[in-house]
């Protein structure tokens, strides 16, 4: 038995194809990106080692990048403070069993399976100044010649991409929360009922504490997903107008593939990686205590 599951030749046969493919086409490019970020490099000319200068320039000289980082933090904030609470609320109501539980679950998840390109195009049309649904509604409410252009005004452009971003993934987190609640043993709830606990007590003393590991997962997905956001913003505004709705990934894309700034763009790419890992680490630390409590119950 040990022989069969421990022979090196067999292990290699099973694991190497996937590992080699993944390392050569995901990990090595990632490290090359990291290396490029330390050079001044335009793809053709000489590569000049400049250490951390690219990273210093990101914050010292590039106000578009600072704005882009702030925008991505706004997206993180909206996901954590609007999207996740809605998802959690829906999951808690649905998991307790209501009429049409399955219907709601399916409907909420529906936008998740649709391509961001379609979602982006669709919401561009919703926000269209002349024929968009939003302005139709505002006109119907009385402002009869209202034709504000949501996406081409710097004040509202980013806000308008934020709405579909939050909207699309409500169902995703709802389903993870829902699954988490469903896997909590019924015994706790029966015991609580016998003890005469109120619904509020059941929610705050049983469901939420036991859900801590799941909440952690959702918080991490939510933060890293927001920090790396690209598709929706690229489709809807391309970062414009005048860089008002830029996020780090759209700036990076432009620098790499439009302006040929390979070194500088790679620094932006690598900054996103570091951010994602850092936030994952911080969130895991913050949840450590809550998770210990959850497993102690």
């Amino acid at each position, binding site marked *: *038995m*040990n022989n*069969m*599951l*421990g*022979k*090196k030749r*067999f*292990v290699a*046969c*099973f*694991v190497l*194809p*996937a*590992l080699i*493919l*993944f390392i050569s*086409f*995901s990990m090595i*490019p*990632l490290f090359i*990106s990291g290396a*490029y970020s330390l050079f001044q490099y335009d793809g053709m000319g000489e590569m000049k080692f400049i250490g951390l200068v690219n990273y210093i320039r990101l914050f010292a000289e590039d106000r578009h990048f600072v704005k882009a980082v702030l925008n991505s933090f706004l997206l993180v904030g909206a996901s954590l403070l609007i999207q996740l609470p809605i998802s959690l609320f*829906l999951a808690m*109501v*649905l998991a307790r069993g*209501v*009429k*049409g539980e399955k219907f*709601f679950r399916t*409907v*909420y998840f*529906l*936008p998740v399976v*649709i*391509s*961001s*390109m*379609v979602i982006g*195009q*669709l*919401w561009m049309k*919703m926000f269209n100044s002349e*024929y968009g649904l939003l302005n139709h509604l505002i006109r119907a409410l009385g402002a009869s010649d209202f034709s504000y252009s949501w996406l081409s005004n710097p004040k509202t452009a980013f806000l308008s991409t934020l709405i579909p971003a939050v*909207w699309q993934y*409500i169902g995703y987190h709802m389903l*993870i929360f829902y*699954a*988490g609640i469903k896997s909590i043993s019924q015994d706790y709830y029966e015991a609580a009922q016998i003890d005469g606990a109120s619904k509020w007590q059941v929610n705050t003393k049983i469901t939420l504490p036991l859900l801590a*590991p*799941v909440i952690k*997962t959702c918080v991490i997905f939510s933060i*890293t997903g927001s*920090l*790396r956001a690209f598709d929706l913003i690229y*489709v809807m505004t391309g970062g414009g107008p005048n860089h008002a709705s830029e996020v780090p*990934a759209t700036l*990076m894309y432009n620098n790499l593939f439009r302006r040929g700034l390979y070194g500088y763009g790679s620094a932006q*790419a690598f900054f*996103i990686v570091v951010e994602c890992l850092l936030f994952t680490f911080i969130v895991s630390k913050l949840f450590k205590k809550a998770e210990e409590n959850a497993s102690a119950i």
Partner: protein
Amino acid sequence: MKMKKKIKFLLLCLIALTQLFPLYWLFTFSLKSNGEIFGDNPIGLPQVWRWENYGNAFTQTNLIRYFLNSVFYSMATVAVAGILSAMAAYAIARMKWKLKSLVFGIFALGIMIPAQAALLPLFQVLDKTGLKGGYFGLLIPYIAGALPMSIMILIGFYKSIPIEIEEAACIDGCGIFRCFATIILPIIKPAIATASIFTFLGTWNELMLANTFVDSDRYRTLPVGIMSFAGQYSTDWGLIGAGMVIATLPTIVIYFILSNQIQDSLVAGAVKG
């Protein structure tokens, strides 16, 4: 108490409406003429159901080509990534070897790493090897990118299979490859289906790589194709809408068929992971 329940139910319906309404709107304007969309009927059901918008989308653009390309990329990625990750996850979850936690760590890290971070070096490698622009130029990164998530989902399932199964097979003199193919694979079929759904959705909807690595119409995928003709025919909303519905339909159909599977797998995958 009754009142509170009613308010909650109303809230559920309201949120369901906001999730569904944009999709309803997309479907209805894909069947309208510009006269209706821009004029007297922007929100209601079409007065005349113009199915010819769909006909036009197929005949005036390269939509069929994009559609078939997307089907090919998705199916090939699902098949290859499925086999490779089933094998790798088996080695990580069941076999005994020294570097297993390191390899597990590498794939786990892969889930956290944003794809765009590898974009430029990948672009250069594919360009140098002549793969960029063809089917393989997109297929290889797609397969590599699908592996971590797929492997994580499968590991969870493998761990739930009792070890006695392999022991019995071993006593019967069954070799490891035969044992894997004839005993293990059939057991984890539901898990492979689950991983395949995620791989399929990710590949079918992928935009950034497809937009960057493919420059000829021949190899273009649906999302990029529709994005380009949305610019070209920007005033013909009916046509664009039809294209968008066609790009969305397969994912929704697959979701409806497999929604229970997706929901069960999230319990198994995300919660335990």
